[in-house]
C-alpha cells in the first residue's frame, strides 16, 4: 500500500511558467510594436488584461482543480446560457454576434466556451471509462454535447471557434481512449455537416471558394491573406527590426489582433517566427508531459485539453497567416489583443499549473489506490483494447 512517507507539496511546473512568461513578454512587446503607430491605449488595456490574467492564473493554479470535476455541469450549463444570450442580445459587429456588454466590459462567450468545454469534456470523459467504446454511452452523447456547443457557437456565426472546439473535443476523445474508427466516421460526418454549414453561410462559402482558387494560384488569396503573406515574406530571415514594420501602418488589416503573427514575421523575420513557434512547441511539450505524469484521469484530460486548446488556436492562426488555410479570424494566444482570449488562456494555464502541482492532499491516497492502479495496470496487458477508459 502506500507508505506514510511525508509527501511535500509539489511545486507547479516552473519551466512551463517560464515559457508562458516568455510568450507573454514577447506578446506585449509585439503588441506595442503593432499598435504604437495609432496610440498606446491598446497596449495599456492589454497590460491590464495581462495583469488580471496573471491574477486569475495564480488563483486557478492554487485552486483545487478536482472541484471543477464536480462543477462541470453547472459550468457548461452556464456557458450554454451565455451563448444563447449572446445570440439573442449580442452586439452585431461585422455581421456576427460575438460579444455583449455588461457594465461596459465586452464579454465573448465563444472564447469562454472553449475552456468550459474542455473542463466539461474532461469531467465527462473521466467518468465514462470502458463505456466510451459503446456508441450509446460513448460517441453518441459526446457528439450531442459537442454538437450543441459547436452549433451555438457556429450560429453566431463564428465557424473558426466552432472548428477549434470540435477539434479539441475530438482529440480529447481520442486521447481518452475513444475508438479510432468511430472517430474517423464521426469526422466524416462532422466534416460533411461543417461543409454544408459553410456552404450555407455566404461569407464562409466565399472564403472557401477563394481558398480553392488560391491553392491553384497564390495571387488569388484573399486580401487579408495576401497582405499577411506579403508582410511575412518581406521580413526575410532577419526581419526588418522590431518596430520597423511597414505594412502595419495601414496596409495589413487588424495587426493588433489576428495579424500579429504577420507583424512578427515582418519585424523579426524567420528567426523571430521560429522562436515564437519554438516557444509554443516547448509549451506543448511541458503541457503534454504534465498530462502524462498526472495520476488522475480528470487532471490528465484537463491538462491535455487545455494544452491542445491553446496549441490548436496558435496553430490555426499561424496557418491562416501563412496562407495555408482559408481565412478565419482567430487570435494568437498570448499575443493578440483581447481580454476574453487572454483571460481564458491564462486561466487555462493556471489550471495546467494546478494539475502539475498534483492532486490536493486529501484525495491523494484514495486515487493512488484506485485510479492509479487501474491505469498503470493497463500497460502490462497491452492486448486489451481499452485505454484508461474503464477504471
Amino acid at each position, binding site marked *: 500500500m502506500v507508505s506514510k*512517507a511525508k509527501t511535500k507539496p509539489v511545486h507547479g511546473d516552473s519551466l512551463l511558467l517560464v515559457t508562458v512568461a516568455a510568450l507573454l513578454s514577447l506578446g506585449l512587446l509585439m503588441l506595442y510594436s503593432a499598435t504604437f503607430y495609432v496610440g498606446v491605449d491598446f497596449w495599456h488595456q492589454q497590460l491590464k488584461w495581462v495583469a488580471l490574467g496573471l491574477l486569475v492564473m495564480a488563483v486557478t493554479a492554487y485552486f483545487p482543480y478536482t472541484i471543477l470535476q464536480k462543477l462541470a455541469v453547472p459550468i457548461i450549463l452556464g456557458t450554454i446560457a451565455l451563448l444563447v444570450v449572446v445570440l439573442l442580445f449580442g452586439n452585431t459587429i461585422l455581421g456576427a454576434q460575438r460579444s455583449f456588454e455588461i457594465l461596459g466590459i465586452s464579454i465573448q462567450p465563444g472564447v469562454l466556451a472553449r475552456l468550459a468545454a474542455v473542463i466539461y469534456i474532461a469531467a465527462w470523459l473521466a467518468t465514462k471509462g470502458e463505456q466510451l467504446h459503446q456508441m450509446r454511452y460513448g460517441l453518441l452523447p459526446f457528439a450531442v454535447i459537442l454538437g450543441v456547443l459547436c452549433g451555438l457557437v457556429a450560429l453566431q456565426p463564428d465557424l473558426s471557434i466552432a472548428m477549434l472546439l470540435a477539434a479539441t473535443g475530438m482529440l480529447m476523445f481520442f486521447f481518452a481512449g475513444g475508438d479510432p474508427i468511430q472517430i474517423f466516421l464521426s469526422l466524416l460526418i462532422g466534416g460533411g455537416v461543417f461543409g454544408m454549414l459553410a456552404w450555407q453561410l455566404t461569407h464562409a462559402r466565399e472564403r472557401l471558394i477563394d481558398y480553392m482558387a488560391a491553392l491553384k494560384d497564390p495571387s488569388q488569396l484573399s486580401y487579408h491573406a495576401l497582405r499577411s503573406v506579403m508582410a511575412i515574406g518581406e521580413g526575410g530571415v532577419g526581419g526588418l527590426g*522590431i518596430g520597423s514594420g511597414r505594412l502595419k501602418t495601414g496596409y495589413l488589416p487588424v495587426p493588433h489582433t489576428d495579424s500579429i503573427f504577420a507583424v512578427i514575421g515582418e519585424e523579426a523575420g524567420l528567426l523571430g517566427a521560429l522562436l515564437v513557434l519554438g516557444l509554443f512547441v516547448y509549451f506543448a511539450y511541458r503541457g503534454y508531459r504534465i498530462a502524462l505524469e498526472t495520476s488522475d484521469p480528470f487532471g490528465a484530460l484537463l491538462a491535455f485539453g487545455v494544452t491542445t486548446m491553446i496549441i490548436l488556436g496558435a496553430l490555426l492562426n499561424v496557418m491562416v497567416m501563412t496562407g495555408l488555410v482559408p481565412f478565419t479570424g482567430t487570435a494568437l494566444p498570448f499575443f493578440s489583443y483581447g481580454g476574453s482570449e487572454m483571460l481564458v488562456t491564462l486561466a487555462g494555464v493556471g489550471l495546467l499549473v494546478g494539475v502539475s502541482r498534483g492532486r490536493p492532499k486529501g484525495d491523494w491516497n484514495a486515487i493512488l489506490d484506485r485510479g492509479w492502479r487501474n491505469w498503470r495496470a493497463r500497460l502490462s496487458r497491452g492486448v486489451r483494447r481499452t485505454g484508461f477508459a474503464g477504471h
Partner: protein
Amino acid sequence: MSVTWQKRTHGVQRRQEAFDRALARVFLGGVIVITLLGSLYLALVATNTRLSGKVWQMEEGIAEWQRQNEALTVEIARLSSIPVLIQRSIALGYAPAANVHYLVLPEP
C-alpha cells in the same frame, strides 16, 4: 510500484524538479534580459516614429500658416488698395481736388 509513483515519493522526482526549477530560473533571467533589450530597442523605434510623425504634422502646420499668412497679406493689400483708399477718404469727408496749386517753400 510504477516508476512514476516511485519518482514522486522517493525523491527522484524532487531532484528532477529541483533541477527544472534551477533551469527555469536561468531561463527566466534570459527572458527578462531579452525583454528589457527588446523594449529598449522598441522604445527607440517608437520615439523615432513619433517624432517623424510630429515633423510631418509640423510641416503641414507650416503650410497651413503660410496659407493664412498669404490670405492676410491679400486682405491688407485690399484694404490699402487705391480704390478702397479713395472710398474711405470720401467717407471721411475728403473730396477729390480739382485745382491744385503747389507752393514752393524754402526748406526749414
